[in-house]
């Protein structure tokens, strides 16, 4: 399924997107600070250096912590899909780390006035094709 807007990698984010293409969700990890970091930055935000910053694969499992629904976006490309669901999930092994998702099971479906978004429910990462050769992470509920 093509996406309205596709991400363009830059040097700091290239490894993240490359891993998505291989079906892996990775985040940065600073070994001397014992700290995960997302989104990717040039240096660890704690020690301020990249000396000990590596990429670490995650479980991909995350919990829904909240949501929004967009009815009138400033992003013109998304207008045809309105209203659409916006969900934030927090990584199971480190809830400080959070991600955007559209919950692919519900993506693009008609959203009722009071959608039933199961806060706290566990999701698994899936990778969907934003455009040919460019996978992005989305989460779906673990049944």
């Amino acid at each position, binding site marked *: 399924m093509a*996406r*309205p*807007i*596709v*991400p*363009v*990698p*830059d040097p700091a*984010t290239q490894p993240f997107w490359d891993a998505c293409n291989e079906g892996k969700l990775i985040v940065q990890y600073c070994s001397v600070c014992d700290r995960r*970091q*997302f*989104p990717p930055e040039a240096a660890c*935000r704690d020690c301020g250096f990249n000396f000990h910053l590596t990429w670490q694969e995650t479980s991909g499992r995350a919990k829904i*912590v*909240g*949501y*929004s*629904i*967009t*009815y*009138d*976006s*400033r*992003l*013109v*490309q*998304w207008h045809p*899909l309105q*209203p*659409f669901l*916006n969900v*934030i999930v927090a990584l199971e092994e480190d809830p*400080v*780390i*959070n*991600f*955007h*998702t*559209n919950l692919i099971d519900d993506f693009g479906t008609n959203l009722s006035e009071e959608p039933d978004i199961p*806060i706290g429910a566990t999701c698994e990462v899936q990778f969907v094709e*934003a455009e040919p050769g460019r996978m*992005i992470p989305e989460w779906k509920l673990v049944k």
Partner: protein
Amino acid sequence: MAREVNWERNHDPVGIWNGRGKAALIARGHSPTDRRWDGESLDKSLGAFMMIAVQNALDDAGITIDDVDGIIGSAGGQPGGAPLSDVWGPRPYFDPPYDSEDGLTHVTGQWLRQQMGFKNIKYINNHGDPIWNLIGQAAQAIADGRAETVVVTYPNGNLPGRYHQDPTNEARGPAVWPNTWGWGLSGQGFTFNQYCQKYGTNHDRMAPFVVQERKNGLLWEHSYYAQHEPGEFTEEDYLNGRMIARDLSIFDCDRPVLAAAAYIMTTAEKAKDMKQTPVYIWDHTESLFSPRSLVQTIDDTEEWTDIQAQRSYNGSGITADDIDVFAPYDGFAVFTQYYIEAWGWRGVKRGEAHDFYAGDISLKGPNPLNSGGGNMGTGRMRTVFITDPLEQLQNRAGERQITGRAEIAVSHGVLPVRAATVVRSTTPG
């Protein structure tokens, strides 16, 4: 006259400000408030409006241009002097002085100096943040002896067309994260969604607050609504608001307008010679944070606002009980609850703001929250947060004058992630 940096009080523990009571806010001046610029009428440009506001402020203070030795502003109204709205270019410019963005979407102090004929300026800074920071910056400059009589300028432009619309189908740099998943205002919607989860409340419980702000705003002559849309705004209107990004409806988002405001601030010494009662700056503090991960959570929000509220209390030495006039920012309306709870105004604790809204927050009651109407009641002017508390403390708020004591005011804005607080008093302290 290179631009000054590092004037902020953002390093804990800030301690009681050593400039306390040395600077006084005296007067305010406003331009008309329009919805947008028509792209043609140079007499209604942002620059023209800024000049009107400056002249009104000077007249209000009873001084002339020659009395002014400093101009402090944000040329575009946002941090670093960037514009609130889009820029005019690449559309063709006009004859001087409208031959650049300066005068159309920005107004610098240098441009004002040329156009209005200021002769005695020894300090100019165009790179301020939103208006709360500008008041702090001017107070600091005066306390530090950089200038004695400062005009604070706040130009706030809006061009034809819907702004901030982004037509691209590729996302680059920091925009990669929100845009790929279609996040826009939904970020604030999410944080509010977490707030509602955490405290068992919902969007509709904000209705009394927004309705009250609209009421207050209609009593402020400079409000966009007072000038252009004077009808009553009811709870029915609010509850039927069109959703933009759940749970932010169109009535939780401030309406962009074209307006300029100016303030006169001076030393405690010079304040005695001015036409209006001085309102002394007791403290200013500033803050800048960043989320722990990608999206600002309710935990981030509460931590940041707690730090800044504490910083302001430490810097001013006041307690929650001392605050008579409280003006926490509201553009988006969902911000205000975070601020009220962080400051604990009227004893409101975390999670209690919506209960507080359900009580008496009327203008003439015991808890006249945002007596000027905030952005919801005036449009995205932001300046009501400075003007209304000033007028309340000077006892010249007219129909908006609150019935309780009005001796100490706290104004706070703009975002939880980046904010400034100004504490003012009728006495130098």
